[in-house]
């Protein structure tokens, strides 16, 4: 991205949360969440349905008061400076809500005005944002005619009207078509490039793989911290080797004491980086193993997720 003069002032740790908890009556929605999101990076929030992702985001955004724990967003504490926290956050809720009677451009203009941006500026920014989310042709149409994915994009544009330094995106890819998902990915990377901190929750893990710098796993209201990070790091080193005769592959690996997981199709081995992968492939071919497929096992996040003790609420 261009060196942006108007980029939000850099805050190293845009979001810091420690030991955050919140319950609704007897439901412990979030029990112990700890996370940091540095400015200029994208962090994923991953977990099964009902594990408390939305609740955690609400607390980070200053809409919901935590029962316990401390939160700092863009250097402000939501329990004393909630307005400052809200002002620095662009929040895209998972619930789609739009003013049915108003056009997309009116929606963004009024929203900008709600952030005390002069009307003309708010309108100009609305036009730009609609272009950015590819809704320009819908600028003058009422929001009620928009399709689900279009509403989702309008919601994303709405989160950006005040040029926030921190973005909380709750399942932004929900209902988007494949092309829009790829565009969303690019957009999210751009946001990080502009110096914003992005926390994004999603259930489409393969997608997150390509856009996030870090991932936070949640389960039953708890963030999994270092264990999960180690699992992701481990998953990233896994390579899948498919051989025409798996037997030959296993023997070659065993002969040189290379640790591997034997599979029907071949084996899974751990390789630290791309250089070593290239060497390993050359070595295998040299050993006379007929390798017909070689590559990372797949989504590291997905593997970690599946490996996590699975629970659903």
């Amino acid at each position, binding site marked *: 991205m261009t060196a942006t003069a108007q980029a939000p002032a850099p805050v190293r740790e845009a979001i810091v949360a420690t030991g955050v908890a919140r319950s609704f009556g007897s439901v412990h929605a979030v029990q112990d969440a700890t996370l940091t999101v540095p400015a200029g990076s994208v962090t994923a929030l991953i977990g099964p349905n009902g594990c408390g992702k939305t609740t955690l985001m609400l607390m980070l955004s200053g*809409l919901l008061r935590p029962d316990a724990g401390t939160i700092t967003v863009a250097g402000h504490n939501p329990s*004393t*400076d*909630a307005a*400052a926290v809200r*002002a620095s956050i662009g929040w895209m809720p998972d*619930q789609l*809500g739009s003013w049915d*009677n108003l056009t997309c451009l009116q929606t963004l203009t009024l929203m900008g005005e709600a952030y005390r941006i002069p009307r003309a500026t708010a309108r100009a920014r609305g036009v730009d944002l609609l272009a950015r989310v590819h809704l320009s042709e819908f600028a003058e149409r009422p929001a009620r005619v928009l399709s689900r994915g279009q509403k989702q994009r309008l919601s994303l544009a*709405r989160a950006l009207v005040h040029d926030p330094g921190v973005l909380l995106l709750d399942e932004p890819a929900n209902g988007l078509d494949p092309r829009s998902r790829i565009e969303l990915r690019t957009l999210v990377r751009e946001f990080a490039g502009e110096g914003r901190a992005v926390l994004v929750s999603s259930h489409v893990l393969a997608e997150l793989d390509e856009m996030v710098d870090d991932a936070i796993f949640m389960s039953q209201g708890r963030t999994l911290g270092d264990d999960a990070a180690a699992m992701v790091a481990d998953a990233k080193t896994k390579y899948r080797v498919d051989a025409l005769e798996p037997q030959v592959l296993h023997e070659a690996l065993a002969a040189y004491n290379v640790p591997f997981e034997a599979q029907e199709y071949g084996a899974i081995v751990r390789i630290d980086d791309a250089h070593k992968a290239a060497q390993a492939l050359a070595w295998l071919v040299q050993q006379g193993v007929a390798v017909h497929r070689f590559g990372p096992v797949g989504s590291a996040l997905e593997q970690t997720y599946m490996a996590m003790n699975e629970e659903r609420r």
Partner: protein
Amino acid sequence: MTTTAPTGTQPPAAPPASAPTPVAPPPRKGNPWLPTFRGVSLMTRIELRRRRPSTKGYIFYGILFAIVIAICIAAAIFTPAQLSSTNFEIVLIMVLGVGMLIAPSLSATSINGDSGEGVLAPLQMSHLTAGDIAVGKLLASWTVSVFALVALSPFLIYTYLSSGWRLGEMLITIGAILLVVLTFTAVGLAWSSIAARAVASVALAHLTTGFFLIGTIIVFGVSTLLVTEEAPDRDRYIDYGQMTPAAEDALNDAYMTGDFSALNADDYTCIDSEWAYTVTHTEKVAWILLMNPAVMITETAPIVDPETWEEDGRAAPGVFANVHQLLSEARLGPDDELTGYEPWDECADLERQISAAAQVSDEDMEAEWAETEADWEARQREVANLERAPWLGLGVSVLLLVGSMWIVINRLRVPYKKLRSGTRVA
């Protein structure tokens, strides 16, 4: 100026097409909640735009206004040649009715409806304070009653011209109407911030309105039972049972002719009869009526003297003046002289008739009647001219308004501690 800077001052490079317009929202501190002028007007604007009625809504409003306008036209057409305030008062009641029907219905779905649609939380995230959102929503719903007023203003002005009201009096009463509508709009808003479902909040809003308009009258009616006292009384009657037939005939003749001179008082014995009658001290509970917002409005209307209204340039007492009279009657309570019971003593009456040398002359009788009537008229004037008492109703209204808005603002403040039960933030 143009020549001095050949190279240095090129216009700043236009931002690349993809870079969005830079914006600089002002920084925020703390967690303000007070309404601000800018915030309230923006919120009102948003609400008015997004709550523009749908086609069905327009049809509903159209029908409602057709009915109201028909009534108003009737009121305008049947305006008699002389001054008459009733028609004007009917139009005022229409304005109040339309406002009370629509504005609280709108406000009662405003907050829980928005929250359900998911458009409330994004506003709470913005620089709008809880006070901005609350007051903006209040004013937007209330504006409907202002529209009703404007729509009906031709009738209002036409009937006003022959109503005998002064301009200032009209403005005060209209102000009172708008205040009452504002109050119950705020009550509706408060219910919508408390109840999770729109059905519940609309019902509760109308129930509250109903309680204050009708419930106060019922409560007043019931509470009069508590202030009803029994007053013992002793009457004396002539005992017809112990009378000789001749004496009875003589008495009947005397009543027929009015000539009592032939009667002998000793022929008649007297019996005592003790019984209880009730006195209702309405003055002790009249304040319940004064809390009624409709009564408060009629109490702002000008006083019409039943005797001198023509010289005063007024119309004959209309609806509001009659309400004022009924209310004043309740406020003053029973009048001992007029309605208070005077013991009836038939024997004493008879003795007086017999002993009176002359019969009671017609003039005396008429004088007595005239006196009674003068008493009654004096009472009527006193009642009609009793000082107006809108203050209690006004106080109740303002209290409800402030209390409701306090609830709404508290409910809208984020971060939420407690949520409306059974709802999510988003």
